[in-house]
C-alpha cells in the first residue's frame, strides 16, 4: 500500500525545500533576536511612550494568527508601495512575529534578576549601558536559552505557513509533489520526518550551548 520508493527521485527537491525552510527560519530567529532585545529594552526602559509602543507591538503579534500577519506583509505592504520578493517577505513576517515572542521571553528574564546585582554594579560606578551589557544581558540570555530554543523550534514549524504565500519551502514542495504523484501520505510523512530531524537538531544545539554557558 505505501510505497516510499516514489519519493526517491524527488529527494533533491525535498532537501532543497528543507534548506529554504531552515534558511528562512534561521534568518527570522537571528533578526528577531536583535529586534527582540530592542523590544524588551524598550518595554522595560524608562520612556513611557516607547514602553507602551513595545507592549502594543507584542500584543498584536502575539494575539493574531501568523497567517494574518503573513497576508498583511504580502498584500498590505505592496498596497503601500513596498513590494518585497516572496522569500524576503516571508523572512520579514516571521521576524516581526518572533521578535514579539523573543522580546517577551527576554523581558521575563529581566524580572528574574535580583535587583541587588544591578545596585552593586551602579555603586561601583558602571554606567547604565555597562550594567545592561555586562551584568544583565549575559544572564538574561543564559537563563532564557531553553525558552529561546523552544521559540526557534516554533518558528521552524510555523514557517510551513509561508507556503501559503508562494514560497517553495519544504511544505510547499511536499504539497506540489503529493498532488503531481497522487502520493500524499508518502510525501507528507517524509516532510514531517525532515521537520522532526531539523527540530531535534536545533534542540540538541540549544542544550549544547546551555551546557557550555552554564556556570558551575
Amino acid at each position, binding site marked *: 500500500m505505501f510505497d516510499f520508493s516514489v519519493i526517491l527521485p524527488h529527494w533533491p527537491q525535498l532537501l532543497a525545500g528543507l534548506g529554504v525552510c531552515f534558511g528562512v527560519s534561521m534568518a527570522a530567529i537571528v533578526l528577531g533576536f536583535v529586534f527582540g532585545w530592542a523590544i524588551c529594552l524598550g518595554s522595560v526602559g524608562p520612556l513611557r511612550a516607547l514602553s507602551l509602543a513595545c507592549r502594543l507591538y507584542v500584543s498584536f503579534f502575539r494575539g493574531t494568527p501568523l497567517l494574518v500577519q503573513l497576508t498583511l506583509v504580502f498584500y498590505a505592504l505592496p498596497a503601500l508601495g513596498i513590494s518585497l520578493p516572496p522569500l524576503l517577505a516571508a523572512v520579514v513576517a516571521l521576524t516581526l512575529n518572533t521578535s514579539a515572542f523573543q522580546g517577551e521571553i527576554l523581558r521575563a528574564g529581566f524580572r528574574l534578576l535580583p535587583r541587588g546585582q544591578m545596585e*552593586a554594579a551602579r*555603586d*561601583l560606578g*558602571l*554606567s547604565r549601558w555597562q550594567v545592561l551589557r555586562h551584568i544583565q544581558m549575559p544572564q538574561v540570555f*543564559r537563563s532564557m536559552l531553553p525558552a529561546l530554543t523552544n521559540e526557534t523550534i516554533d518558528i521552524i514549524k510555523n514557517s510551513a505557513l509561508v507556503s501559503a504565500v508562494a514560497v517553495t519551502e519544504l511544505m510547499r514542495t511536499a504539497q506540489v509533489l503529493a498532488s503531481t504523484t497522487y502520493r500524499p501520505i508518502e510525501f507528507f510523512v517524509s516532510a514531517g520526518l525532515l521537520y522532526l530531524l531539523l527540530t531535534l537538531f536545533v534542540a540538541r544545539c540549544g542544550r549544547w550551548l546551555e551546557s557550555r554557558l552554564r556556570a558551575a
Partner: protein
Amino acid sequence: MSSPLAIQLRNVRKSYGSHEVIKGISLDVAPREVVTIIGGSGSGKSTLLRCMNFLEEYDSGEILIDNQLIGYGIRVTGDYHRLPGRIVRDSLRDVCMVFQQFNLWPHLPVIDNVALPLRLVKDIPVAEARERARAQLEHVGLAHKADAWPGQLSGGQQQRVAIARALAMQPRIMLFDEPTSALDPELVGEVLNVIRTLSDEGMTMVIVTHEMGFAAKVSDKVVFLADGLIEEQGPPEQIFAAPQSPRLRQFLNTWRERQN
C-alpha cells in the same frame, strides 16, 4: 578651604510616597572615622546608608562627600536640580558599598567579579585588572578562589569577595549594610576581621550592624536610629555602658535578652 569632614549630612529627609522614612538627619563623619549605625528593624538604617551613595534619592537636606554635594546641583537662583547619572557616579567614585546579600555577579568567575569594574570604570586593561584583582583577593585571604564561581563559595567567602571588589576601586569611604546578617554564625568572624583590618588601615567607614560587640570594639562613634531620627549618638562607651535615652536602653535590653 576644604572641610575636614569625609561625609556630612544636613537635615536629610526621605519619603516613600507619603511615608516619611528619614525625618531630618544630620551627621558628620571625619576622615578615618568609623561610625556604626544601630537601631530596630524599619528605623531607616538602610535607607539612610543608601542615600549616602545615592542608590536612593533624598528629598531634602544635603549630603556632602568630601565637601561636594551629592546628586544635586544648585542653580544661581538657589534651586536644586538633579544631576545626570554620569556626574553623580563621578562624584561618588570614592564611596563603595557592601551589601547584606553580597550581590556578586554569578555569571562571572570570582576574579572577574573584582576585575570587571576596574576595566569598565577605570579603563584598566584586562591583564592588569586581573593582576590587581588577584592582589585584592589576597588581601581578604581568597587568592586561591580566584577561578571559582561565586556560587561555589560559602557566604563568608562571598562577602569577602564583595569587599575585595569594592576595595579594588580604591575608595576612601566604605559603607556596609549589615554585612554579616546573611551569614551563618560561624562565618561572621572572618568578615568582621576583614572589616577590622580596614579600620586599622584608616578606612573611613559607616557600618549598619546588629553585631553590638563588634560595634563596641571598632567604632569611634555609634549612632542609634529610631523612627527615622537620630535618637542618640556618642562614643561606644557611652552608648553601650551609659545610654541616656529610654528607647536606646530598651533596644539594648532586648538585644541582650536575645543573646541569652
